[in-house]
């Protein structure tokens, strides 16, 4: 592996665990097995065929002799031609024939037979056997196939003779020996070649995987922009690389969101801290009246409260995202919940010249909710609505039963939100108009909190708005148990 030793995982330590090793080992074993099977079966076929041709040759000779003895027992020349001359004329695959009478006395013998074979042994070993040949070693160690048969002489039969035939099969044996050598040679060559070639092929095949791994190893939070080039990869790996790139895309986005969030937190914390510090420094620069000191202290207190609220909201969001967060669900009458919010904000709405109404549905609506969290979500929405609606407008709270889900709607006739800002309104610290919220004192976390409360309830928050006509936020959540 081309990786750095520090993080090359276990690959360099345990070569047996590498994919390339496993693949090439499997390929090699399979290849070797096939080669062994093929050559061994070919060898067996060859041997059988050679044996069969020897056998056929012997049978053929025997048949000729048998015919001659039966049909023309007195044609000695023909016999001699068959037994003595034909064999002698051969250079390879020589054969020897001996003809014995009924008392075992040789009548005719191929010349040189006695030098090549122990005739007594031949006689004893072939006696009483069928016509199938048996193997026998010659005097000089050459391999022979021998057979003997009783043949009838004359028609009608006068007596019986015995024919002994021996054939030198050293040519066939040599052929088989050469074949075996080739066999071992091929086996040796393939057992070296297969693993080598197989390993190379496997390595080549998994190289893209290693490249992907190398890229993955390089990627840290600082270079999330890097991507795996998926050109030229086989389709399976191209899809892997693609999936990987999509994951990086999402990670990069979340990281950007988080870092923007952190920068926003820092900014929002800096402002009150800066105020406290500056005011205290200026106040301490020289002696002040008691009232001046009191003003500074009160101002610090206000800033501290602002900080506390910000911290409280941030903690709330952090906790809402923790998988350990549990909801304290109880049966909540939605109308009663909306009325509670209305009562709380009524005075503010009246001050702002707005009417704040709860649009009562026909039937009572109940749901299993975390009451205090939902109260908070709806309050945030109403607070936003009041802040962004001009005098004479209306803020409406409504609830609808949607069978398995319920929805709570807060709509206003206010200034609305520009279309391009809508996708970001639920982001933390996002403010449609940054200068405006400085005055109204919002933390920019209100809608983020609303969304996280709905997420905790397994629901969602949706916003639709028309610039100059108003905004409508719909909270939709499963009702669980309604009564």
């Amino acid at each position, binding site marked *: 592996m081309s990786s750095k030793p520090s993080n090359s995982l276990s690959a360099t330590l345990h070569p047996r665990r590498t994919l390339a090793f496993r693949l090439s080992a499997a390929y090699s074993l399979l290849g070797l097995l096939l080669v062994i099977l093929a050559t061994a079966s070919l060898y067996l076929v060859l041997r059988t065929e050679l044996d069969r041709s020897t056998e056929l040759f012997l049978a053929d000779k025997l048949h000729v002799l048998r015919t001659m003895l039966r049909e023309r027992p007195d044609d000695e020349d023909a016999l001699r031609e068959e037994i003595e001359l034909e064999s002698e004329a051969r250079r390879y695959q020589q054969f020897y024939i001996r003809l014995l009478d009924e008392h075992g006395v040789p009548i005719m013998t191929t010349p040189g037979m006695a030098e090549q074979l122990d005739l007594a042994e031949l006689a004893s070993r072939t006696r009483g056997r069928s016509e199938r040949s048996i193997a026998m070693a010659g005097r000089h160690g050459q391999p022979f196939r021998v057979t003997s048969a009783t043949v009838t002489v004359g028609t009608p039969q006068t007596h019986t003779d015995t024919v002994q035939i021996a054939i030198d099969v050293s040519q066939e044996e040599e052929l088989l020996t050469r074949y075996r050598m080739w066999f071992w040679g091929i086996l040796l060559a393939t057992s070296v070649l297969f693993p080598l070639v197989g390993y190379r092929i496997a390595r080549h095949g998994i190289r893209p995987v290693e490249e992907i791994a190398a890229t993955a190893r390089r990627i840290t939070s600082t270079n999330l922009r890097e991507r795996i080039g998926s050109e030229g990869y086989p389709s399976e790996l191209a899809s892997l690389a693609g999936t990987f790139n999509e994951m990086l895309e999402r990670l990069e986005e979340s990281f950007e969101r988080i870092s923007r969030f952190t920068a926003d937190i820092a900014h929002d914390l800096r402002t009150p801290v800066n105020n406290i510090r500056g005011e205290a420094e200026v106040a301490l620069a020289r002696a002040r009246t008691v009232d001046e000191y009191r003003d500074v202290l009160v101002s610090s207190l206000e800033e501290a409260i602002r900080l506390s609220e910000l911290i409280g909201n941030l903690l709330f969001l952090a906790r809402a995202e923790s998988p350990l967060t549990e909801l304290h669900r109880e049966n909540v009458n939605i109308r009663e919940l909306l009325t*509670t919010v209305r009562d709380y904000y009524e005075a503010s709405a009246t001050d702002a010249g707005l009417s704040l109404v709860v649009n009562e549905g026909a039937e009572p609506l109940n749901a299993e909710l975390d009451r205090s969290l939902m109260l908070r979500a709806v309050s945030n929405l109403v607070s936003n609505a009041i802040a962004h609606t001009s005098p004479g407008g209306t803020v409406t709270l409504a609830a609808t039963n949607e069978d398995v889900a319920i929805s709570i709607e807060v709509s206003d006739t206010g200034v609305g939100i520009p279309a391009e800002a809508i996708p970001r309104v639920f982001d933390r610290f996002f403010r449609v108009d940054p200068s405006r919220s400085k005055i109204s*004192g919002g933390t920019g976390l209100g809608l983020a909190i609303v969304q996280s409360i709905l997420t905790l309830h397994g629901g969602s928050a949706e916003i639709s708005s028309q610039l100059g006509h108003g905004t409508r936020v719909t909270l939709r959540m499963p009702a669980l148990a309604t009564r």
Partner: protein
Amino acid sequence: MKILVIEDEVKTAKFLRKGLSEAGYVIDVAADGLEGLHLAKEVDFELVILDVMLPVMDGWQVLAHLRETEQKPLVLMLTARDAVHERVRGFELGADDYLVKPFAFSELLARVRSLLRRTTPRPQESLRMADLEIDLLRQRATRAGQRLDLTSKEFLLLTLLARRAGEVLSRTLIAESVWDMNFDSDTNVVDVNVRRLRSKVDDPFPLKLIHTVRGAGYVFEAEQ
């Protein structure tokens, strides 16, 4: 009445001692859990204000040991974490109240007072402050004999202020008691409501009863 503050953060301990002393309590401070526990066993405290994150022995252990002492003082826990399960754990271990940092001192003082108020206030039929009279049974309030035209929430708010006359009530506490809003909702809503109440209770009369304590909340008293 003697209160023990077990708190390792020096500044916090200092302002608790100062604030509570000025409110008329006798304060002892311990800087770690073990020291606090020893003190609590030796001296008869009526209330222990206990931080959770403490050196040597943490607040939970101190609380568990305190439950086994003879004195069994009341315990108010202070913590920087307000995860619900921590709150539940605190109450299970026998804490009498629970406050999350950062807290308003007025809030702490209010809780200390209500914990140490030995007897629960008897149900009263009426409250009186200067020329203001609140008839709790008939839900009506009069000032200098004049009937005040209050909404039900305004009446609740006035009753809350009057019942706890002299105490600084934070906006959070008011929102929670009157409107059931038990979270830091935008508290200027409380200001708006108090302003409306004032316009009916105080504005027509020379003697003002509802006073703003800047940065802290509201107090109900008859002094100028």
